[in-house]
């Protein structure tokens, strides 16, 4: 099963990521966000990133998680390819990611500017969890 699928948006790019657990859906959404921009199949996981995020709803938490990764990746010049999420009580999560330098990589999609709340959805579906999110590109 693909880790995410792209859905059509006129100006920007939306994805739906699935997972057996909410953690896995969040990890796959992060994978999708970077895979839209870089071909992650050729990216080694040599540098690690740790982030924490909080949100009052699962949707807010998803945006906070993805936004934290996006900022970290841009600041450190990384294409991130591996993700791990640990849910904590109180609408928080601790996450880790790994990847390597992005500067010399061919872009296969426009860089993601930000994670939007428009049309955002995180919920249980038969067989697991689904996260739907639109990126501003």
């Amino acid at each position, binding site marked *: 099963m693909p880790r995410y699928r792209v859905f059509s948006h*006129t*100006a920007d790019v939306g994805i739906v990521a699935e997972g057996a657990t909410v953690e896995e859906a969040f990890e796959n959404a992060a994978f999708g966000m970077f895979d839209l921009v870089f071909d992650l199949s050729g990216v080694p996981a040599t540098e690690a990133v740790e982030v924490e995020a909080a949100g009052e709803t699962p949707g807010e938490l998803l945006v906070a998680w993805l936004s934290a990764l996006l*900022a970290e990746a841009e600041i450190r010049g990384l294409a991130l390819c591996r993700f791990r999420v640990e849910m904590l009580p109180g609408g928080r999560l601790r996450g880790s990611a790994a990847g390597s330098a992005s500067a010399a990589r061919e872009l296969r999609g*426009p*860089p993601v500017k930000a994670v*939007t*709340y428009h049309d955002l959805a995180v919920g249980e579906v038969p067989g697991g969890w689904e996260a739907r999110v639109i990126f501003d590109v």
Partner: protein
Amino acid sequence: MDFQRTGEVTWELAAEGGMRVPGRVFASASLFAKAEADRALQQVANVAHLPGIVGASFAMPDIHWGYGFPIGGVAATDVAAGGVVSPGGVGFDICCGVRLLASALTEEEFRRHRCEIMGELDARIPRGLGKGAVAGKRLLDDVLERGAAAAVDAGFGGPADLERCEERGTSAGADPGAISARALERGGGQLGSLGAGNHFLEIQVVDRVVDPEAAAAFGLAPGMVTLMIHCGSRGLGHQVCTDYLADMGRAMGRHGISVPDRQLACVPVRSKEGEGYLRAMATAANFAWANRHLLAHTAREAVAAALGTSVAKVGMGLVFDVAHNLAKVEEHLVGKHSRRLCVHRKGATRAFGPGHPALPPDLRPVGQPVLVPGSMGTASWVLRGVADNPAFATAAHGAGRLMSRSTAKKTRDGREVMRDLEAEGIAVRPGSVSLLAEEAPFAYKDVDEVVDVCARAGLAAPVARLRPIGVVKG
């Protein structure tokens, strides 16, 4: 959506449910049909829910589906009546906009030196994921406070560049303390860079002048080579919007506000959170004004180097610089009364008419230049602001996307698009060939039709048409 055609190029949705004002779209029948194809019209209705909104929730002829606001959306809220500011109504790319320079070159001269000019621009214009060409903490700090004026004082360009820039290149009320350390870390090093996506630097030629008097005032003449830059506040602006949107979800609850889309989160302009956002927005806007200014400076040096001459000899003076993602407090008539309104323009351009005091004296008799870039490979337009604009002095900002990025890529790949453009005599220097397909001309609406509707709706009047002859893309 029950929009009724109320005029030749006007469509109206009566206020219903929680809408505080009607929705009003300026479009021809064919452009309106395109807007109906996605969710843009629902977004026009959603914006009409904003507290304090006056007049209508407007959409320009290049309307398309955005996030929160439609692209091409305009909302003005009455500051004294609890009117709100919505970071989503400005967008992540705060103060994204367009800058036009007029060179002393003719098309024939450009063609003769095409390889050298395109080569120098290709080598010197930072784009894609790369950092900017201009570094230094002292300059950055000053830019955040004073925008393009700081860059001029640091020796980049000259005072004439400020005269012809919206807000004279400096947004008032900036406070670098209002933006996060993370925003600075993320975008600070990107000053003087183009970015990627739909941002570009384009060489054009003036191929038609329809208003000679205004064209002369703007410094444009038939056959003149121009250079257009489209970009914004890069990672710094993206992070400012991200930070404030996250906080505004909670703040909205404190102010008892609810909106139909979380992305429309907003707070009263006159609130601690609203004032904080506007200070941060102005700071990011200053970064954007300076960013386009510095890119123009790099482009002037590139063209001069390619021709083996001086910057002074290639001309390339500023025609104008406009923002198309910004919220501004402006005075407008609502009914018979002048009100202070917070005007959100999300993918829409301010278009002050003749006589407006904010215009430089030499442009005041004709109105503000309005820059409407077409898609890569198609024409762009220069318009002028007109009196009695029906949408709080606003006009379109571009051709407007028609096709999703994935569909565009399936239609033709980047190499094919590059060949198509070269076959039309347009030199292309892409940062990434594969990204070209997403920005192909067929992915956008017809800019001539958008401009025609602007004219018929009384939003702005056409002045000159610019035909592309060279493109530098991220």
